């Protein structure tokens, strides 16, 4: 699903050069649920941004669902992002002036679906997260947990192959967080690949595989052979395979 090899990301100003990711390699297979952990400033968000095609990388190789991402223009990246990836943000990132229906509709409009298809998908995805009765409500009328469910519905409505979750429970209390995690697990069981960035070791433990990032590099990973992740040995997974 996602494969990065020797990838690096350098932020440059005329005074300072910051290596956010260095020689970063990872392979996430179809249907996996991977948790990416690490302290603040370790490079988790940079990884998420690059993996989600939100940011470009400085060097290395990156394939997303078989597509070589290097050299893709901005429009092509937007299209690929829209078709392949669903995003769940820590702060939900719902548009406050739009009701739930229109919020979920946002990525579908960019996808170019017709009105009937969009309506069907919106209703299905809101129903999946248990909010079909509140389509005309605005985000401010919902609890944090409900808002995150809407964000999940929005991410799922386009039937993405990969779900990128950035601290999806970071702004929720434990009860709501548990509900969101259960929902993500259910989505994963239905076949969607999930990469979740989190600080919370308890949440990370519920993923199939953990990747620990430190100073822009993968320093630790689960050793389950079938779900092997490598950092400096790009050929290791091939060997394992």
């Amino acid at each position: 699903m996602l494969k990065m090899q020797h990838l690096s990301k350098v932020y440059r100003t005329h005074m300072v050069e910051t290596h956010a990711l260095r020689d970063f390699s990872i392979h996430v297979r179809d249907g996996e649920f991977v948790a990416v952990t690490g302290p603040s400033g370790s490079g988790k968000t940079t990884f998420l941004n690059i993996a989600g095609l939100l940011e470009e990388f400085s060097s290395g190789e990156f394939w997303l669902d078989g597509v070589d991402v290097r050299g893709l223009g901005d429009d092509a990246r937007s299209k690929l992002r829209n078709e392949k990836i669903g995003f769940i943000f820590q702060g939900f990132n719902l548009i406050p002036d739009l009701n739930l229906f229109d919020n979920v509709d946002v990525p579908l409009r960019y996808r170019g679906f017709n009105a009937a298809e969009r309506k069907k998908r919106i209703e299905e995805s809101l129903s999946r997260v248990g909010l079909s009765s509140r389509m005309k409500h605005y985000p401010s009328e919902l609890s944090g947990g409900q808002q995150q469910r809407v964000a999940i519905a929005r991410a799922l409505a386009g039937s993405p192959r990969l779900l990128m979750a950035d601290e999806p429970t970071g702004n929720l209390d434990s009860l709501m967080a548990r509900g969101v995690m259960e929902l993500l697990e259910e989505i994963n069981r239905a076949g969607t690949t999930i990469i979740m960035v989190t600080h919370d070791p308890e949440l990370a433990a519920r993923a199939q595989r953990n990747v620990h990032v430190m100073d822009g590099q993968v320093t630790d990973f689960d050793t389950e052979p079938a779900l092997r992740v490598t950092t400096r040995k790009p050929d290791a997974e091939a060997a394992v395979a």
Partner: protein
Amino acid sequence: MEIRPILSALMRSKVAMVLIGLQIALTLAIVCNSLFIIKQRFEHMQRPSGINEADTFWFGSSGFGRGYDARATQLADLQLLRRLPGVVDASPAWSVPLSDGGWSTGMNLQPKQKTSTADTALYIVDDHAVNTFDTHLVAGRNFKPEEVVNATFGDSLHPAAIIVTKALADKMFPDGSALGKQVYLAEDPPTSTIVGIIDRMQQPWATSESIEYTTLVPAHMPYGNFTRYVVRAEPGRRDEVMKLVEQKLVESNPSRIIGKMRTIEQTRNEAYSSDRAMMIILGTVIFLLLAITALGIVGMASFWVAQRTKQIGTRRALGATKFDILRYFLTENFLITSAGLLVGGLLTYALSLWLLTHTDGAKLLPWYYVPVGFLCLWLLGQLAVLGPATRASRVPPAVATRSV
């Protein structure tokens, strides 16, 4: 096109939308009506006076001293003027078109008529006036020398023969039979016979509603020791002739003062100075209004872009291209502008009707001003929002994952 969600979002920020919409509505109303007034003023200024303006000038001569004979001086001056090199012709004239001063009277068809059939300006001239002013006879004849009477200021004028403009002839005799007809220049007889009709010669008053109703009266009639002359020079020699005329007249009779010489072009400029000032003021108002409206749109759009940076980043993250973002802001502006213009269209006609009932000579705004105004303000709105919208389209999608 995501018109419905944009409208829905706008309805939740009504204050900003109403304010900017109202500004656009007022701008449309004021700009359309101001442009119409400017057009009317311009057309007013462009009306032909009916005389040769490029080569003609006029001036006064005031005699002083014991023994000054105004009538003899006038006749001698006219002979001298007509002989000068570069002069086509000269005539005495109490006034000239657009000079803002002169005589007028009511012209009647019957004696003791209570209401005049037409109000006409009277130009007291001689048989050289038609040629001097370079106006054209469309019917009848010029004055004969013997028809030019010697008159004294204060006498009642009852000229036997008069020449009138075609507009006046048509007003007096709408069936087109004015030539040879008799009219009254006063309440009582005798009558004057229309011996000639000239195509056009405006009155001295630029604002007169009957500006085209003019009568030429043949008389040598100095005003005390004062006489006014009109001179037409050969094409291109006006300024040279003006100097020569002044010099020769002073030499011929030093017992008088030659007043300031004015060209008809200067006279026209002075006559329409208030129209020109009005056009400049309204033009400035239009420019400032459009600039303020454009700046208002830029300010509002810039504020919204800054306020919605995270939202724009989220849209980008969810698959919006740069063009999608640009289009979003252009569409949003188009909708706000359209709402403002719909209100503005009604306001424009309301203002036009108000001007119609409260201003002399005002006309109802022609219908096409509003659609043209719509197009211009739509274009202005789109141009104004282009900068902020382009900035919005450059918001990177990674903004969506930033926590601050």
